[in-house]
Structure formats: structure tokens, C-alpha cells
């Protein structure tokens, strides 16, 4: 019962936060003072009649609050409005580009935990050896290189060694899809790998030094069982939390990586729309990002609540 109450409460909170964010974004956009009519009409010369028609069509003649309710109301109907620059529904623009971005994040989510947990465990088990130091230093460097720089270096290496690599794939088959996304995904993952790796290492060392591990060693359990059966199991849940939080960071990361690798994803759409003052798209994408981010946080909190009943009490 308590769990259900906790669940409903968290859901309710998330919805409030989401609505507040949407209002902030909407207000910021309207405060900007940029005249959207110019972008809609392509920046050319226009007759007063055309300008008047556009004002009515896009509800610019209505008060701000009414415009907000038009917008948010339509969003709940799945209608994010129409792009000023490309005269397509924002949903079409986003949907087409979403597969690239989702692909990037999924591949990155496959690479990150595997490499990071493996590296972190190796580092913890081999604590204070040359291998540990090497991994620690590399992870620190990985953490410090901006993903766009990794991207540029990768493109340099790729085009030097495999000059014929495809730039124009349309992501039609899975193989091509994977080929074009693997390098950007690696560039996107590096700093996340470093973060997860460092946490895995710390948690594992913590666990390995704890009493029950010493106890298990004393009992004569095999090293392997101690690591995987006990220490790793206990270190896993904080590690997975971090991975979850990193998905949020990845959303911003994709913007950079897509820009460097010239990929048609939502990130490059966001930058293009900002540069073109294409507000419906900027608003729609910002809302999408926030939705994903808030949902992930909700899921993490709730799964924590299920695992650890103490949290339910604390949070409420």
C-alpha cells in the first residue's frame, strides 16, 4: 500500500515538474523578442495581408496565456505544432531523426556498462598495480576530453586509414545503421565510461575491504565467488543508478556528437533550429528532452523504492 502511495506521489511530482518546465520554456521563447513571422515567411519581403494571415494562423494575436494553453493542450493530443522553417509537423521532424539519436544512445548504453564495469572491477581487483594506475589515468583523461574533440580526432583517424567510409548513408539497413553510428557512439560514451568506471572501482574496493568479504575469504570461498557472488552484487545497484543518470547527460552529448559527425539526429535538429529561430521545434525538443529526463529519474526513484523501503519513508 505504501508503495502504491509512494508511486502515485512521485508520479504527481514529476508531472508538476514537467508542466513547470514547459511553462518556463514557453515564457523564455516569448520573451526573446524575435519576430517569428520573419522566420515563417522565409525572411523575404511580405505584404501586410500575408503577415496578418500568419498572425491569425499561429495565434500570435492571442494573449500569452491563451497561446500557452493552445500549445500545451495540443501537445497532450500529440501535436507539437508546425516548424517555421520546414513546414512540417514538429512530430514528423523529430520522429524521423529520433532513430539516429536512439540508436546512438542504445549503442552507447551497450558499450558503457560493459567496458566501465569490466575496467572498474579489473582496476579494483588489481588495486595499486601498474594496470590500476594505467586505467585510472586513462579514465581521468577520458573524463577530460570533450566529446566533440574525441569526434574530430576519430574522424581524422577514420579518414586517414579508411578514406572511403560512407558519409551519405540513409540508415536503411541495420548494418549500415550500425556502421555509421558505432564511432559517434564511442565518442559519446568515453566520458560516461570514465565516470561509471571510477564509481565501480570505488564501490568494489569498498566492498572488497568490508567485513563480509574478509569473512568469506576466511571461510575459504574461491576468489571468483567472492568477486561476482558477493562484492559485485552489492556494488551493482549504485552503479546502475549512475548509468541511469548518465542517460540524461547523453541527451546533451548527442547534440555535440551529431554535430561533429554530421548525423541527422534530434541533436543536430536542435542546433539548426536554434540558429534558424525555429521556436516550435526548439520548444518541442526541449520538452522531449525534459520528458525523457524526468521519466528516467522517476523510474530510478521508484525502482529504488521497491528495492529499499526506507526511501519511500524518507521521500515522503
Amino acid at each position, binding site marked *: 500500500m505504501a508503495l502504491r502511495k509512494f508511486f502515485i506521489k512521485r508520479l504527481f511530482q514529476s508531472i508538476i515538474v514537467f508542466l513547470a518546465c514547459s511553462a518556463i520554456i514557453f515564457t523564455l521563447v516569448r520573451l526573446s523578442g524575435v519576430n517569428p513571422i520573419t522566420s515563417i515567411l522565409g525572411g523575404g519581403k511580405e505584404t501586410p495581408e500575408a503577415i496578418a494571415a500568419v498572425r491569425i494562423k499561429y495565434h500570435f494575436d492571442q494573449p500569452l496565456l491563451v497561446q500557452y494553453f493552445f500549445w500545451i493542450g495540443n501537445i497532450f493530443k500529440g501535436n507539437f505544432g508546425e516548424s517555421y522553417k520546414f513546414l512540417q509537423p514538429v512530430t514528423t521532424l523529430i520522429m524521423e531523426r529520433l532513430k539516429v539519436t536512439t540508436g546512438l544512445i542504445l549503442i552507447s548504453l551497450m558499450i558503457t556498462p560493459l567496458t566501465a564495469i569490466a575496467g572498474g572491477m579489473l582496476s579494483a581487483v588489481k588495486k595499486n598495480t601498474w594496470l590500476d594506475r594505467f586505467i585510472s589515468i586513462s579514465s581521468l583523461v577520458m573524463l577530460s576530453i570533450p566529446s*566533440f*574533440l574525441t569526434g574530430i580526432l576519430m574522424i581524422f583517424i577514420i579518414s586517414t586509414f579508411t578514406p572511403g567510409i560512407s558519409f551519405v548513408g540513409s540508415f536503411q539497413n541495420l548494418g549500415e545503421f550500425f556502421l555509421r553510428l558505432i564511432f559517434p557512439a564511442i565518442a559519446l560514451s568515453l566520458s560516461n565510461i570514465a565516470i561509471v568506471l571510477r564509481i565501480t572501482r570505488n564501490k568494489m574496493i569498498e566492498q572488497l575491504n568490508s567485513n563480509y568479504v574478509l569473512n568469506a575469504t576466511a571461510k575459504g570461498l574461491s576468489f571468483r565467488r567472492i568477486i561476482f557472488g558477493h562484492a559485485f552484487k552489492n556494488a551493482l545497484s549504485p552503479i546502475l543508478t549512475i548509468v541511469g543518470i548518465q542517460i540524461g547527460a547523453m541527451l*546533451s552529448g548527442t547534440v555535440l556528437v551529431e554535430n*561533429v559527425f554530421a548525423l541527422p539526429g534530434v541533436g543536430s535538429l536542435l542546433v539548426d533550429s536554434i540558429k534558424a529561430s525555429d521556436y516550435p521545434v526548439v520548444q518541442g525538443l526541449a520538452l522531449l528532452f525534459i520528458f525523457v*529526463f524526468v521519466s528516467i*529519474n522517476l523510474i530510478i526513484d521508484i525502482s529504488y523504492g521497491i528495492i529499499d523501503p526506507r526511501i519511500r519513508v524518507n521521500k515522503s
Partner: protein
Amino acid sequence: MRRKLILKLKNQPLLAPSISIPFLILAIFVTGAIFAPFLATHDPNRLDLANTLLMPSRDHLLGTDNEGRDIFSRLLFGFRPTLLGAIGVVGLASIVGVFLGMVCGYFEGLIDTIVMRLWDINLAFPTLLLAFVFVACFGKSLMNVVFALGIIFMPLITRLTRSLVLTEKNKTYVEAARSLGYSHLRILFVHIFPNCIQTILVQVAISLANAILDLSALSFLGLGVQPPTADWAVMLQEGKASFLSSPVVVLAPGIAIILVIVSINILSDGLNTYQASGKE
């Protein structure tokens, strides 16, 4: 005697290599940025189309870029906007964040709830997204980006300060101060604040590294520092196309960014350990 001195120095955590080396690197870069007008060999914005993409030589220490500008001089000047911007971001975030954190932690109650709920909303924006929206609405410029990042960085510092104040305020020295009848403000800023400052400073150092990373990301996307201003991220964006013919164009600012961030990260790691050892 001498041996003992060396041993003593070695045990002095502030002189440990994990603190002194990154500090030295940072000092070099910051000095270079401050004294850029005196150290630069050329005008960083002076074009020379007859001498584009030159290799490093005595005249051009790091060669020239695709518009014939001296890379070494641009590198010196190029740290300025990012450094100033990052200091602006962290300064703004710390001043507001520490103040709010202290007030919330000390008084709790309604103000605490309001501020914390506001920051919950702020934290619901994925990193950089608020900066993107800000730039979209108010135009591409370093000022706007600094302001947006400042707001983004506030919740972390507020929360940290708040939790520190929450633990500190129940300690005996605070009770003692209270029983002496000192004002809340005095207790907060004269008694509690000095006990929190160390932990906050480590967070500020980490934030500085993140601010530099985020600022260069935004400038790289063409939303922050605007060309032709010399800036490392702008240099990377402009040099990207000539990377194949002249790698220095990208490597120089690239390595500079990496060195600075790695140094700050090692430094904050080192300070963390130093602090931990101090507490023991």
C-alpha cells in the same frame, strides 16, 4: 638532516605531485592568458592569406591557420574568453548558491521548500538544455551562455552548502554562539561559513572544470563565443576542415583544452584526498 627535510616536504600533501604538477600547468596557462598581449608574437586576428596553414617555424611557433593567423598567438588569447566565462559561471553559481544554501539550511521551513522545489525544476533540465533554450531565445553570445550555465550550476552548490549547514548547525559551537545571543547572520557567516568553505571550494574547482567543458561545447556549436574572437573551441570548429592538411590547427587548441581540464580534475581529486587526510 637533508633527508629528513625532503621526507617532510614529501609528506606535505600540498606539495604532492598530484597537486603541484596540475597547479603548475594551470598556472602556466593562466599566466599565458593574462599576459597574452605581451607574450603573443602576432596580432591574433591579423589575416595573412599568402601564408595559410604554415607548419611551425621560428616566425610562427605553432604555424598558421587556414586564414593565415598565428596559432601560437591565438592560443594565448584563446583561453581568455573561456577562462573569464568559466569564472563568471562559477562565480555567479557560488555566490547565489552558497547564499541560498546557507539560508535554506539554517532556517529551513517555507523558504527552504520553495528554493528546493525551484531547483528540482532546474535539475529536470538535462545538462546544457537550459543553455540551448537561453541561446535560442536571447541570441548567441558568451554573456547569455555564461548566465544560463550559472543558473544550471546553482542547484548543486546550493544543495551542498545546505547539507553542510544542516550538519554544522547542530554542533555545540553553534549552540554556544546562539546562547551568547549572536544574530543569525553573524552565526551563519562568521561561525558556520568558515567550517564549510573547504568542501565548497572543492566543488567549485570541479564546477570550474565542468564550466570550461560546457562553455567550449557551446562555443564549438557556434552558440557561445562568436568568431573571429580567438577561442579554443572556435579554433577547433574553424580548424576542423583543414585538419587533414595541417593537424596543428586542431591539435594545438585540442591539447590545450585537454591539459587544462585534466589538470583541474587531478587537482580537485588531489584536494579531495588532502581534505580527507586532514579530517583524519
